């Protein structure tokens, strides 16, 4: 495996990043987006007056959507001018993009869904303020992590909503690649899973974490859910009829006892990239069950976001206090 690592010091806290065409886009706490292309050139652009609170990208169209504490949601496309999608009084807390071209963001308890090609967003009110948004890969749902569970909006008919309930504060949301399961993370250092077709009977807690498992991702084949929030890599099975409900997690230990903060599955492979609390990054291979260090610890603090390009070749990551990295891992 060949690897070149480019570091970007943004000089401000980093919110996260994502891939867009042939570049990795990083958002910072000073309202800027830094677009790092694969040749090493970096272009920064100021989009918000305050901090960017969340960022999402659409790799296919190359769009970057940002949520700011200046009350704005902004979309910028390659070679285009920034487009203000939302301008309100409250912070825009979250943003999500779908591979089908939809965009969603939230401010307080209100969710704004802008379907592909639409001029104006559809609004929906959630039962509490929203911590995270995510589109289901099967194109059926937009999900919001809220107090008391997951609030789902049917994309085909946004007036139709569903609530997957479980007492407590939920702070992240995701859907299994086949769209059958919804998973949230909770303040109580646990995950919760529902089978979306039978949420009352088929749901369960995935607990035992020493820290909040706020980051998780399904392996490329969809068979396992890799989770952060522990010193070990915890992977839950998703291949049975009820997924992880009633099942045990697989646990993989590394030599170093370091808390992981974020994970992402590498496309077209059986590998998981893991970001740790000290700023280091490792790659775990499920076949060999080995961990390989990709980036060493860094003074810029914990890795708070990781993403792979769709072809699995490039890995981008951001560290909380301002240093991002882009690694060429070669073709998987």
């Amino acid at each position, binding site marked *: 495996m060949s690897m070149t690592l480019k570091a970007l010091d943004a000089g401000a806290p980093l919110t996260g990043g994502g891939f867009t065409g042939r570049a990795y886009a990083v958002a910072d706490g*000073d309202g800027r987006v830094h677009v790092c292309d694969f040749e090493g050139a970096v272009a920064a652009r100021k989009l918000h007056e305050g901090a*960017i609170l969340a960022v999402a990208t659409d790799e296919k169209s190359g769009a970057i959507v940002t949520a700011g504490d200046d009350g704005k949601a902004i979309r910028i496309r390659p070679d285009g001018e920034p487009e203000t999608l939302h301008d309100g*009084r409250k*912070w825009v807390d979250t943003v999500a993009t779908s591979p089908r071209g939809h965009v969603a963001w939230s401010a307080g308890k209100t969710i704004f869904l802008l379907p592909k090609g639409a001029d104006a967003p559809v609004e929906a009110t959630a039962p509490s*303020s929203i911590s995270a948004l995510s589109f289901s890969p099967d194109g059926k749902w937009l999900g919001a992590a809220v107090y008391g569970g997951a609030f789902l909006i049917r994309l085909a008919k946004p007036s139709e909503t569903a609530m997957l309930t479980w007492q407590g*504060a939920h702070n992240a949301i995701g859907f299994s690649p086949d769209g059958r399961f919804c998973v949230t993370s909770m303040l109580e250092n646990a995950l919760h899973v529902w089978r979306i077709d039978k949420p009352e009977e088929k749901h369960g807690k995935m607990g035992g974490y020493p820290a909040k498992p706020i980051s998780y991702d399904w392996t490329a084949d969809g068979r396992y859910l890799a989770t952060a929030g522990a010193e070990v890599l915890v992977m839950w099975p998703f291949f049975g009829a009820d997924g992880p409900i009633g099942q045990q997690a697989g646990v993989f230990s590394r030599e170093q006892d370091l808390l992981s903060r974020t994970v992402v599955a590498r496309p077209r492979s059986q590998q998981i990239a893991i970001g740790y609390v000290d700023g280091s990054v490792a790659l775990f291979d499920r076949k060999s069950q080995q961990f390989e260090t990709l980036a060493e610890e860094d003074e810029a603090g914990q890795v708070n976001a990781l993403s792979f390009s769709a072809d699995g070749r490039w890995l981008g990551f951001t560290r909380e206090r301002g240093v991002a990295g882009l690694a060429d891992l070669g073709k998987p």
Partner: protein
Amino acid sequence: MDMATDKTPVTVLTGYLGAGKTTLLNRILTEDHGKKYAVIVNEFGEVGIDNDLVVDADEEVFEMNNGCICCTVRGDLIRILSGLMKRAGQFDGILVETTGLADPAPVAQTFFVDDDIAARTRLDAIVTVADAKHLTGELGRAPEAQEQIAFGDIVLLNKADLVSEDDLAGVEARIRSINPTVQIVRTTRADVPLETILGRHAFDLDRILENEPDFLGHGHHAHHDDHVSSFSLVSETPLDPEKFFPWVQMISQEFGIDLLRMKGIIAFPDDPKRYVAQAVHMMLEGDHSREWRDDEPRTSRMVFIGRNLPRDIIEDGFMKCRAAQPVPA
């Protein structure tokens, strides 16, 4: 930012509507103090200043899913504080205003429950703003008013110019009967030096009981109909850690719902260091702090502030934690 801990201090402002919270906030935001504050308020008032940031909160109280009904946090506060930590350029401090009738516990507990919040910020103090003229009436009418006094580290007895010296002394005695460890500051138009309310480290274990009640003058003269009251326990004999830890855990579990705040300094036999502990409801924390000074009696003492706490049961348990005395040779 607090250089010593690298954590941004957070001050909670509580108190009844009309007591002077907004006046105080406006002062903090407009005064030329050279500091940069973020203020989290429930409704935008007539504020909004160059250097500072005013954030609108939703006051959402979330129950935890851990079987503990008093384990509540402010969900919106977690979201807002996380957002503030993403900004370039940190704040010298963050102020959180709660609405008139709000229970301060969920705000305080947020800093105990959420590890990510606790890693970046620290609860500095709870400041209760009270109207000197109306407090006595409010204490008689509303349990919330008593609880805001009970939770406070500092009570600003505002509009003190409108009340006679005798009445002020009466109100202060009433405040102390509810909360014997509170610092009371008389003010007019919330005119108080900012260092009186900011940077107080009231939740630092090292400073527990710095503002000590009169432990020897037993029986704080509780108002007979007070919903919230307090008592202190003292032992000249050191406590046995083998007995003390299970007991204090049990107390915080058993009586946590009604236990608003607990603070204690404990002497263990042959231990040169003081053990300090505090609790907000069931959230209990403790650690060793500095060494006992040579000139300082090694007296264990605890203060409990709560709603109808069974003093006899708690006192009996405390006394049973006393270590066996070595038999004189």
